[in-house]
């Protein structure tokens, strides 16, 4: 009996639900930011790694995510204006583009393409990225706002794992818990509200649910064909997971996303038609030429089924995060150390995670995308790549551009390397008789 290939994509009832939801949620977020700015309500600047949204949301503090705002300027093709404005003030071309876009926004009236970009009333910066701390020092000088640096001890060496009964773990937890309590006091001052521990429990419970959903979403891509592109759609899941971390709307969004993916899987519909190559993305994305970048892989029927990005920018959601609501503050400290921080500090030793992910998700190759702006994710890539090739037999492509600076995007160079990579994957396939 001849099997018929599905010639037309079946009409999926949930198609587009996630995109519609995320657009509306993003609009709401920008509306909230604009309202906060107009009414002089304090806004908390925070970051995707170690955001402590759990605490900030307990105080109903409006959160601004400058990293997300910066990448949005690039997607809208506007980042160059802000970069140049910052460079005019003396900021070097060699520092993080996100920082410069933000400085440029502040220097030119805080008019972001998506709405009014608020001033920070306080800052929560974790040490998960050293640049966060320098970035906050800029806001501190500019606006005199309190800066809370959340110091999270991370992996001390390769294969690091906490032993819950060890002194090391208890000492680290004590430090983090102490800091969280200090942040709670600061949030009381800034918001003018008293700390409500039951509200915190509710928020933590919501994050627990989001964590389950996030993991389920990631696991959907173990299917063949993979239902979502971990780069284009993944960025959406990640973005919303961050800005609505701990909020019921965040849970609803992820339930919508999961349902849409389940439908795709049921009908065998992949992110790319006739999926041919499954890829892992290590590093961050190029937002100025986002669609072109993905297009250069899709033309070879290549799809990003997984990305390290969805791990380290997920704040522990991919690592089995689960808060104990009986001991909310202690548990918050513990879970950050066990899930969020390792998803970041583990990337310096992530060759083993990459090898395991490559196997779990049946990956044909890894794209190592080094961006100039982000030395955190980029500096050690060549070394990790060689390890994967020679120790795990997973081929890797190394390309470079930037997060938001289109001066570093060279289409011809990228395309050449990407095409050559796929040619070699094709010939590997032929040799393997697949």
């Amino acid at each position, binding site marked *: 009996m001849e099997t018929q290939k599905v010639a037309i994509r079946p009409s999926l009832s949930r198609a587009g639900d996630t995109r519609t939801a995320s657009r509306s949620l993003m609009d709401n977020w920008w509306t909230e930011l604009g309202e906060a700015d107009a009414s002089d309500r304090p806004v908390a600047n925070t970051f995707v790694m170690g955001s402590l949204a759990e605490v900030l949301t307990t105080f109903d503090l409006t959160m601004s995510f400058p990293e997300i705002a910066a990448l949005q300027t690039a997607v809208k093709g506007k980042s160059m204006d802000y970069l140049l404005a910052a460079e005019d*003030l*003396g*900021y*070097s071309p*060699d*520092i*993080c583009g996100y*920082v410069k876009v933000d400085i440029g926004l502040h220097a030119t009236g805080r008019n972001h393409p998506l709405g009014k970009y608020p001033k920070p009333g306080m800052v929560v910066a974790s*040490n998960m*990225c*050293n*640049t966060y*701390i*320098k970035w906050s*020092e*800029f806001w*501190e*000088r500019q606006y005199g706002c309190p*800066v809370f*640096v*959340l*110091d999270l*001890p*991370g*992996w*001390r*060496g*390769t294969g690091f794992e906490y032993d819950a009964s060890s*002194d*090391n773990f208890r*000492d*680290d937890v*004590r*430090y983090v818990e*102490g*800091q969280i309590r*200090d942040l709670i006091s600061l949030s009381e001052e800034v918001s003018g509200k008293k700390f409500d521990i039951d509200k915190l429990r509710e928020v933590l419970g919501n994050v627990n649910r989001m964590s389950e959903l996030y993991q389920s979403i990631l696991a959907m891509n173990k299917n063949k064909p993979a239902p979502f592109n971990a780069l284009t759609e993944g960025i959406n899941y990640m973005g919303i997971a961050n800005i609505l971390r701990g909020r019921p709307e965040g849970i609803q969004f992820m339930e919508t996303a999961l349902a849409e993916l389940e439908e795709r899987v049921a009908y065998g519909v992949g992110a790319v038609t006739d999926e041919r190559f499954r890829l892992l993305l290590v590093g961050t994305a190029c937002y100025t030429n986002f669609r072109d970048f993905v297009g250069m892989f899709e033309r070879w029927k290549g799809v990003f089924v997984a990305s390290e990005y969805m791990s380290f920018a997920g704040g522990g959601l991919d690592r089995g995060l689960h808060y104990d609501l009986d001991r909310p503050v202690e548990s918050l400290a513990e879970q950050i150390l066990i899930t969020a921080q390792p998803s970041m*500090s583990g990337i*310096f*030793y*992530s*060759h083993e995670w990459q090898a395991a992910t490559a196997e779990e998700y049946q990956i044909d190759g890894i794209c190592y995308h*080094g961006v*100039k702006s*982000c*030395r*955190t994710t*980029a*500096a*050690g*890539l*060549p*070394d*990790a790549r*060689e*390890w994967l090739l020679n120790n795990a037999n997973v081929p890797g492509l190394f390309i*470079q551009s930037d997060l938001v600076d289109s001066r570093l995007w060279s289409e011809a160079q990228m395309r050449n390397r990407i095409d050559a990579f796929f040619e070699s994957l094709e010939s590997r396939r032929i040799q393997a008789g697949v």
Partner: protein
Amino acid sequence: MQTELSQIVEECRIAVEDPEYPAVQQWLEANPGGKVLGHFQVYFPEELAHAAGMLPLKMKGFDSSVQIREADAHIAAFVCSILRTSLEQALSGRLDFLSMYVTHPICDAARHLNGVWTRRFPDMNCQILYLPQNASSSHAAPYLAAEYRRIAGLIEEVTGSPINDDSLRASIELFNENRRLLRELYQIRRETPWQIGLADAYLLMSAAGAMPRERHNELLERALPIIRAGDNHPQDKLRIVFEGGYCEQPPIEMLSVLQDVAYVVDDDFMIGLRWILDDVPTSGDLIDNLAVSYLDHSSYSPVQHDPRKPKEDMLLKRIRESGAEAAIVAAPKMCEPGLEEQVAYDDALTAEDIPHLVIEFEEKTANHEQARMEVETFAESLLFEFV
């Protein structure tokens, strides 16, 4: 007397500049079975290693005497030179004597060092020490003390030697003495900078991290009286502060260029070796004392966040207290924290009307004509201003 001083400077120069680490090799020969602990910039509590009988060695970069052959295969572009030269040293086999290697996440690029070293040298006991970036928190000192105990425990495992109060006290006293001698050197430079050139003073100071501290103390004890007794005469040179040498170091030739043109009366070169500003107490809990000294009795750098010490205020203080008239605000190429701090320094000095020159440098620059031109032009412009 002058010959003795130049001999001392030469011994320091060899220890600092020779990529084969002769001072370490000598120590290993004299101490069979001795173990060396390599620590990257900026700061490391060397007393802990010393107390277990280890030789602590500051991993720093090298100038063009170390040619990059292998390191670029492991580290991406757009990073500073010091990461590459220090890795190159390891990949070339020159650091095979290390029994332990410790880094601290000073910046996003340096955080990769440990991962790369671990993959390439799995037997080198590579460790990360997490120094607190929430330094003003009341919880920071107990945390740091715990972190020091953890590292001390690992040192004990690697060496098989216990670190007890007596050995740790003796080490702390030794390093306290070293810091006192370094402070004296810097005082001489502030008060009578004509008695010692910048390049020589730099070598005398930075050798601390490249040789046994006992020997370094001996050398300083001999050198300082000679310098004080010198009969050089003051010249009409600009008094400046150099800010930007906390991690990657400018090449020594650049310092020679500077000293022709100005008196550098204070700086932050190798600040980690001089991080603690007064004696670490030797009574009570010694590890607690080391932790408190790190946090509360210390200098400043762009890679240590501490709201109690806003960096531009600290720089202005340094300029004031050293009687400097101007500053060079430098940053290594590609150094994210340094380049970011530069803008704040620039703005602050401009607001205070303090003349300053903003430059970038690289440890491996062999050609200093551009630097010379910039610094000379700067100095000239100020001389004309003062006339």
